[in-house]
């Protein structure tokens, strides 16, 4: 058994978010975690291509754009993770036979990228005003060589770590919506990381709430 993780590592870096920053998309947001930064845009509900049409719900497409070069297999796998998470959160059956497109543009990668994609995606979906069952947020945990948990690791910390886990936590029951891991780890370590992520999600959801409250403070 590992000792209780050192508290100094269990922090979330500076968070920042700006919504509606792009004029063309129906919803947009940029999300910053430390130096990691992602911009997200949502189009839809709009007309769908016949080949992608689903008769009882909307078709959601997620596109991840890397900074240099074309998207590769890695981006495709991340797209799948983000898409299936969003699909579970969105009430897609309200918009049958229509298309939703979520584009995520990487601006800078300094660790915890997948969680930043998820957070940016959630903020953009909110900005687009799409009906959702719940919100979700992404938390990345790294386990370093000493067995300590580091939340929201930087790229350097990720490199040093022995295992890396990213979870998407839902806002209603704080359960795991998505999980993506790297490296090998014990069951205990995973359960601890889940528990830490659930705690961290409280902070992120509070941040969501604060930023949305601030945004609508004049209209309310």
């Amino acid at each position, binding site marked *: 058994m590992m000792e209780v993780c050192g508290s100094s590592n269990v922090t979330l870096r500076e968070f920042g978010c700006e919504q509606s920053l792009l004029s063309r998309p129906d919803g947009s947001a940029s999300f910053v975690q430390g130096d990691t930064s992602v911009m997200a845009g949502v189009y839809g509900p709009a007309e769908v291509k016949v080949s992608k049409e689903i008769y009882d719900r909307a078709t959601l497409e997620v596109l991840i754009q890397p900074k240099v070069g*074309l*998207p590769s*297999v890695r981006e495709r796998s991340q797209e799948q993770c983000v898409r299936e998470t969003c699909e579970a959160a969105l009430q897609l059956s309200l918009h049958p036979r229509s298309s939703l497109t979520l584009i995520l543009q990487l601006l800078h990668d300094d660790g915890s990228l997948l969680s930043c994609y998820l957070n940016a995606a959630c903020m953009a979906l909110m900005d687009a005003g799409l009906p959702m069952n719940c919100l979700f947020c992404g938390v990345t945990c790294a386990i370093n060589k000493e067995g300590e948990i580091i939340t929201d690791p930087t790229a350097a910390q990720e490199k040093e770590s022995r295992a890396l886990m990213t979870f998407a936590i839902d806002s209603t029951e704080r359960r795991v919506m998505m999980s993506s891991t790297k490296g090998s780890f014990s069951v205990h370590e995973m359960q601890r990381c889940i528990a830490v992520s659930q705690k961290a999600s409280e902070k992120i959801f509070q941040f969501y709430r604060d930023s949305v409250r601030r945004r609508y403070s004049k209209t309310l």
Partner: protein
Amino acid sequence: MPTDNKRVRGPEVSQNPSLFRCKPAEAVPLHGPRADGRQRDQVDVRPVFVRCGLVSQAKGSAYIEAGNTKLMCCVYGPKETERKDETDMKCGRLTTDMRFAPFSCLERGSWIQGSQDKDFSLMLQESLQPALCLHKYPRSQVEVNVVVLENSGSVLAHAITCASLALADAGIEMYDLVLGCSIRQDGDSYVVDPSYMEENNSSSVSSENQGGLTVAFLPSLNQISGLQSDGAMTEETLTAGVRTCTEGCYKLYPVIQQALAKAVRKGAPPPSES
């Protein structure tokens, strides 16, 4: 910079270890008995193993193994034509797709289909089409997909046989089965159903009568639906070659018939009392 960004990428270049082998590869004997013990200049085809209806998702499927050549064929359809603009109101369409698994040849192949695959697909389509009653399937298409798992020669010939079996298994109406057989002519002698080594190994003794020939044959109608030859052969050799190939097809015929009968018997409702 054309890179394949839809697959996990390896190094830009890599080489087959056999390029650096210390001992030269054993040469294929040009006279006398063949490497696998079969007879030269005789209609000595490899024993084949065939089976129908292996793939649960497909309408019809077949697997064929001849020597080390292994290939599989699945048939989907008849279904609505995908390309609406090509819908034919009177006649169905046959589409074929033939590909080699990357590990199927001695040299690792690429996932991206090369011109050879496309060539084979086309040959396959042209050989099968005459045997199908496509007029019975207006506005629809029948898809034939072939995957070569291991290439040990005569791939096209066996693909034709396998595909026609799969079509029959799928219950697509046909005038007859299509059987394929190929020979390799090397000067005066020839080998039937050549292996990969025999296909790619030609002696430079005589430049005349060098070539390969693949025939697609409808056995009960006694008609040829497809013929492909490369190399240079005299008219007489070619005619003789075609004759040899049809003979080879006749040898396959009972095995194919029997595999089909077995699949039909299995698929038919049991003659039970209930």
